[in-house]
């Protein structure tokens, strides 16, 4: 989707006072991939518990709060049945990457080890539960989606309860998020794959309305474009069809039905079912998006005693969270009533 979607760089400062519904799994996988030691090993306690997710959730969330943003973490619920193939494939890839990582590390090839380690990131139930607990103790809202987190985040943005959905994945747009912010949960630098260079990455915002008007298509047609170039449920899309061709095809053929008369559908999953899922995914209106006061003592204990984080660094970050909370609570003040 990248080439056809107009994205605008946005200063973190411009996100001040904004609530953003973050795709929690998307963020956690990034933390798992990026927060690693030089040989690719994840952060770990002396008893072998992996804490890369803990670190990312705590420090990155604190940073977002400190710049005045209110993150709302949306967790996936039950994946749709037709996702099982994708999930199985991903697990297989991770398992392979994990073996390659261990081999590369054994051979002392750090560059390779790092690369495979990033691909090998897996999340356990304990990590997810701990991430929720850290967020709860930080006073940051957690939303449990009935199905896909991205769909729920898009729904919340659509209702105006949050300013945007935050994810790396363009699927949010297909789910109807009026606004998508990318690169929020990454740090300022990202290593370019396979090279020793770093690219400066900064958040960017994509407006659904602008995407649709610049391409001259409807949201339903955008979903069809997505299906052609690939979504989470039909990874890779249809071979030989890139984003630009997909748009042309959709504009010419008009509907999914029309498109399918021109190209074959190589996936098991029914494309009509996918279209319907993107347009009307299971979502809930039962959620809260407000900050609560941070439970500082419990959080310090959880991070330091529970997961061997540095007491001084956690304390400093907690002070930041406390200040941010105070500031955010009265943001806006009487302005809108004057």
């Amino acid at each position, binding site marked *: 989707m990248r080439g056809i979607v107009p994205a605008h760089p946005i200063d973190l400062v411009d996100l001040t006072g904004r609530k953003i519904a973050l795709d929690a799994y998307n963020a956690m996988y990034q933390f798992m991939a990026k927060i690693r030691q030089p040989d690719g090993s994840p952060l770990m306690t002396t008893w072998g518990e992996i804490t890369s997710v803990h670190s990312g959730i705590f420090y990155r969330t604190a940073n977002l709060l400190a710049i005045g943003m209110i993150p709302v973490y949306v967790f996936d619920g039950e994946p749709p049945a037709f996702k099982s193939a994708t999930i199985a494939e991903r697990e297989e890839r991770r398992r392979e990457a994990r073996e390659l990582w261990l081999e590369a590390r054994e051979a002392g090839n750090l560059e390779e080890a790092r690369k495979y380690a990033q691909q090998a990131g897996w999340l356990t139930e304990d990590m997810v539960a701990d991430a929720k607990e850290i967020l709860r103790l930080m006073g940051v809202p957690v939303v449990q989606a009935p199905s896909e987190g991205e769909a729920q985040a898009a729904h919340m943005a659509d209702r105006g309860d949050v300013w945007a959905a935050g994810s790396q994945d363009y699927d949010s747009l297909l789910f109807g998020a009026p606004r998508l912010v990318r690169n929020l949960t990454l740090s300022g630098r990202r290593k370019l794959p396979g090279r020793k260079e770093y690219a400066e990455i900064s958040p960017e915002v994509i407006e659904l309305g602008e995407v649709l008007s610049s391409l001259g298509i409807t949201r339903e047609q955008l979903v069809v474009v997505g299906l052609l170039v690939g979504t989470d449920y039909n990874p890779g899309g249809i071979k030989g069809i890139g984003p630009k061709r997909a748009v042309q095809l959709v504009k010419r053929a008009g509907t999914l039905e029309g498109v399918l008369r021109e190209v074959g559908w190589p996936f098991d999953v029914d494309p009509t079912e996918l279209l319907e899922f993107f347009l009307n995914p299971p979502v809930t209106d039962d959620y809260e998006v407000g900050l609560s*006061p941070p*439970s500082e003592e419990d959080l310090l204990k959880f991070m330091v005693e529970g997961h061997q984080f540095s007491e001084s660094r956690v304390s400093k970050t907690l002070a930041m969270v406390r200040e941010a909370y105070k500031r955010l609570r009265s943001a806006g*003040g009487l302005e809108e*009533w*004057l």
Partner: protein
Amino acid sequence: MRMAEFSLSLEDPKLIKSVVESIESLVEEASIKVDPEEGFAVRALETAKTALVQVLLPREVFSKFEVPERRFFGVNFTELARLLKRAKPSDVVHLEIEGTTMAVRLVGDYTRRFTMRLYGGEEFELRPLNVNFTAGARIVSSEFPRIVQDLKVKGSEVTLSIDRESVRFSAGAEGGEGEISLPRDSPVVLDIWVDEPARSMYSLAFLEKMVKPAAISDELSIQLASDKPLKLFYALPGFSKAGVTYYLANLSL
């Protein structure tokens, strides 16, 4: 002695002292308006826009109100409060403005005169904020400072709620709660009206800055709407519109 351009006198220093202090607790500088019809008025928005104070003292509360025309002056309220603190209960207070100088004259058995500089005052009109309040209560003013102090024992935030039965304040969370309930038949409650029950949260530190006018008012009117700003109005005895009004932004998250 040369006559000042504007000259206001009050027999009772307590009124002007309390009024100035109730402004000074929120802002350092504010604009005052003197108007031959309206009287003496102040409207000041706290710098973070968390709170607004509006004051109206009708000309009748002054023993002398010589104001030839409407005029706005910028006043350093911290300084004015300090000067007025010197007034004894039996003193008559005179405020005399000439050019950019205001003289505060305290006249008792002898006369003390302090002068302070005025600044260009921003123009304003007293007007209510655009909040549709859905519930309200009138309570005995003098109880309010005590209620705020009681709540401070248990927290820094207070949830205020009004329904047909009572006005309730609660503070604190994990470390235990403080709750104060004023049932409608309590002698402290003069009146409760409810279109829709309302409940909202506010900073106690700010409410604490809003208790001073209890000294000069018998009735405090509290108006509330869920998750919206709060309005407190301390009426001057014998007046329906005159007094001190505060608005306080709710804690919104």
